[in-house]
Each structure stands twice: as C-alpha cells, then as structure tokens.
C-alpha cells in the first residue's frame, strides 16, 4: 500500500458485470470498498446512471472513478444543451473511450463496463481497458473477480467465435429474469473465492420502460 512517495493509485477492489439482451441490459457490481486487507465500507455503489438508457459500472481506484463519472456526467449535460436530446449508448461509448485516452500518460485507474440500449432498443455492452481501448460485446466482466466470472459467462452465454463467418449477433437470447439469475449466481460464486468481492450486489436493469434497481446480500467475510 502507499509506501512510495510517487505511487499515485490505490486499488479499492470490486467486480462489475454487464450482459446485453434482446431488449434489455443488465449491469451489476458489488458494493464492497476495500484497501489492502481492510474493508472501508460495505455499501458503496460502483454504478453511475449517465443517461436515460446508459449506465456505467467501474471498478479500480475509486478516487479516479468518482472523477471520471463526474466528468462524463458534465459532458452529457453539455451534449443535452447543445443537441436537445439524451446521448445514445454508442455515443457515450465513444465519449468514454476518448476521455480515457485523453489521460493516456497518467491514466484513470478504472476498469469500466458500459451498458444500455442502442438506438434500436437492443441491449448494448461496451468493455474498456484503463486507457480507452473498447469493444462492443454481448457481455463482460471487469475488476478483481473478472477472471473468475468471464469463463462462466463464456460458457453460459455461448458467445459465437469471432472467427466464424457470417458474424453472429452477440446479445444473449436469455430472458431478463434468466439473465438476472445468472448474474446473481455468478457473483455469489465469485464472492466465495475472491476476497475483494462481497457484502452486497447492486443489479441495474435497463429496458424500454426505464431503469430498475435491485439488491442481493452477499457473503460478508
């Protein structure tokens, strides 16, 4: 932990997941905030509602994440004033990528997953690295538990190989309830084996009728 004078970052742990469906998007993150072997709080949201149909979940250094979310929310407000409409998910996706790359040489220590509905109302998930490389995918996991969760999602959501032609749609045919059930189970499993994931799970579902929030208790040890 911060023993060197020049180390500017801290990892506050946590895991984020997003799954895109035919007409919905599920974004979930645990609510544990930790430093080293200590828990700072069991009740900290990693999810930020950026627009009507756009939700961002980030794990990593919460100082940078707060700043990043604030930055994007401000940019969204400007966009609304200039264009008289809400930003679409793909537009926000590009904005986030540019914002991250802007700080290429002093990065935001943030591992992001952006979820929402695209202009056609279909589920839309973008996954990022710390400096803005992004890709539209059917589902993604980022954070301390990501390597525990991704293989399970790969198996269950049957992502078609990008090597196959013609290119197949990545959104899952699962229903909203089935996707939420999968997210809950996958987080309960990650909590068993990752010490930084736990306490509570916040699940946000975006569909045509708006944004809905749900919570699930996780192991607190």
């Amino acid at each position: 932990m911060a023993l060197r004078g020049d180390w500017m970052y801290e990892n506050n742990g946590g895991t984020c997941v997003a799954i895109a469906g035919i007409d919905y998007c599920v974004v979930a993150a645990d609510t544990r905030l930790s430093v080293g072997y200590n828990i700072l709080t069991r009740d900290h949201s990693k999810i930020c509602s950026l627009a009507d149909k756009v939700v961002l979940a980030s794990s990593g250094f919460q100082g940078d994440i707060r700043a990043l979310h604030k930055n994007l929310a401000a940019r969204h407000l400007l966009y609304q004033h200039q264009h008289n409409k809400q930003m679409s998910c793909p537009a926000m996706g590009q904005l986030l990528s540019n914002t991250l790359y802007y700080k290429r040489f002093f990065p935001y220590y943030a591992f992001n997953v952006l979820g929402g509905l695209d202009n056609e109302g279909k589920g839309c998930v973008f996954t990022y690295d710390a400096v803005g490389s992004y890709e539209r995918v059917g589902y993604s996991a980022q954070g301390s538990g990501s390597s525990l969760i991704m293989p399970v999602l790969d198996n269950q959501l049957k992502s078609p190989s990008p090597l196959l032609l013609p290119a197949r749609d990545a959104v899952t045919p699962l229903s909203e309830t089935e996707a939420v059930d999968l997210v809950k189970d996958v987080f309960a499993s990650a909590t068993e084996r990752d010490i930084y994931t736990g306490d509570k799970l916040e699940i946000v579902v975006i569909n045509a009728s708006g944004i809905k929030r749900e919570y699930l208790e996780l192991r607190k040890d």
Partner: protein
Amino acid sequence: MGRMTELPTKGGFSFDLCTRNDMLLKNGLQMPPFRKTGTTIVGLVFQDGVVLGADTRATEGPIVADKNFEKIHFMAPNIYCCGAGTAADTEAVTDMVSSQLQLHRYATGRESRVVTALTLLKSHLFSYQGHVSAALVLGGFDVTGPHLHTVYPHGSTDTLPFATMGSGSLAAMSVFESKYREGLTREEGIELVAEAICAGIFNDLGSGSNVDVCVITEGKTEYLRNYQLPNPRTYISSKGYTFVKGQTEVLSTKITSIQPKVEAVEGGDAMEE
C-alpha cells in the same frame, strides 16, 4: 582411518543456490507465490484450562485457495497449536514438533509439557532465521497447569493470558481487550473466542468462512471443528448448469495417424552392456 570422520549434520538452510536464484530473478523469472493463510488465530486462558480458536480461510494472494482449512494443529493429546503465515511452514513445523514430542513421551514415560513444545518450536524457528514463516499460538494443559504462548517466525515467544496472531489479529485483539477478564467459565471462554474470530472473519479480508475452536482442560481435550458456520452461500441458481458434449466450438480438425514403430531387435539384452 584414512577417511575423514563424517561431520555431524548441520541444522538450517543450505544457501548454495542463492547466487543462482539471484541470477534467475535478474533474468526475469517469476517466483511462484506461497500460499499464506491470511488468518485470524486466538487463544485464551480460562479458569479450567485454555481455549484456542481459528478461522478457516487459506488465501493465495487475493484468491481463496481453501474455504475450510484446518489451522488448529495437533501437537500432543493435551497440547494444540494454531498456525498463521505460510501454510506449508505451519504444517511442517507443527508436524515435526508433534513427532518429536511423541518420541519424547516414549523416552520419558510422561505426558508432554507445553514448555517442551515451546522450546522445540522456538529453537527450530530461530535456527532458520525467520525464513520459516510460521506464527503460532500454542496452548495446552499439563501437570504444571494451563499454558498459552505465542511464537514468532524469528523464534521469539511470549507467555500471555490471551493472544491473537495473523492478519486479523488486530480485529480479534480489540474484542479480547474489551471483554477479557480472569476466571472466565468454559462457556464464556468459548463465546469470547468465537466472537474474536468472527471479528477477524468479517473485518479482515485475509480471514473468513468458519470458526474452529479447541478446548483443553485437565485430562480432556475437545476439538470443535466448524464450531460456527456464519457464512453460508447467499444465492444458488435453481436452474442449475448442464454441460452437453460439443459445447466447445471446433474451428478445424486435422487427423494424423500414428505410424507403427519398427523395432530392430538384435541378439542380447541391451541392459547387460
């Protein structure tokens, strides 16, 4: 007597490979991580004996390697030892001293004493200069009464009425410092130990899962494995998972048949040469 008499075996490590290891590290070798126990371990003395407690999580960095690991080790029928630090080290050192104590019991015809275990542990750890990363809480009841000691990786020891070790030691000690008093009853002692371990389990990320307790009194030892299970899994999908054959995408197939090996057998047995 032409040959030199054999030197007595020396204790401690052989440091012959140190230069080679340094060279490997310089050339970019990643040493494999040790499995550490994270851990909260405690012990306290009550009116009739000692109570030992431990959590059950073993970690490898940020991953839980074992959710129900036994950290209370057998030393003698009347002596048990909790271990924190590198799992292999705590296992090895307690197993070794336990065997030495048994041989000593046969040689002396007497029940083992806690100070014997203590001396064997501390001299072993000191000779390894802290490289054997074992931090122990040793407790037992012998002819001289109840005893509780802590042993540090470099070989120092303390004799205490209540003790905690491991990454969760501060959380557990906060409970002991608030609630410990002399002359606790058995039930009070067990409850206090369980409370201290739970403080470690919930507030320290290196500790977790279940509470193990061991109560040692005159002539009787009770090993209460999984005394409390305060962390059940919170959610399990009722749908379950099925893994049908052929789930892994096959992109291409190439079959190469194995050529039968032609053996030229010459006379004679190859091994005889």
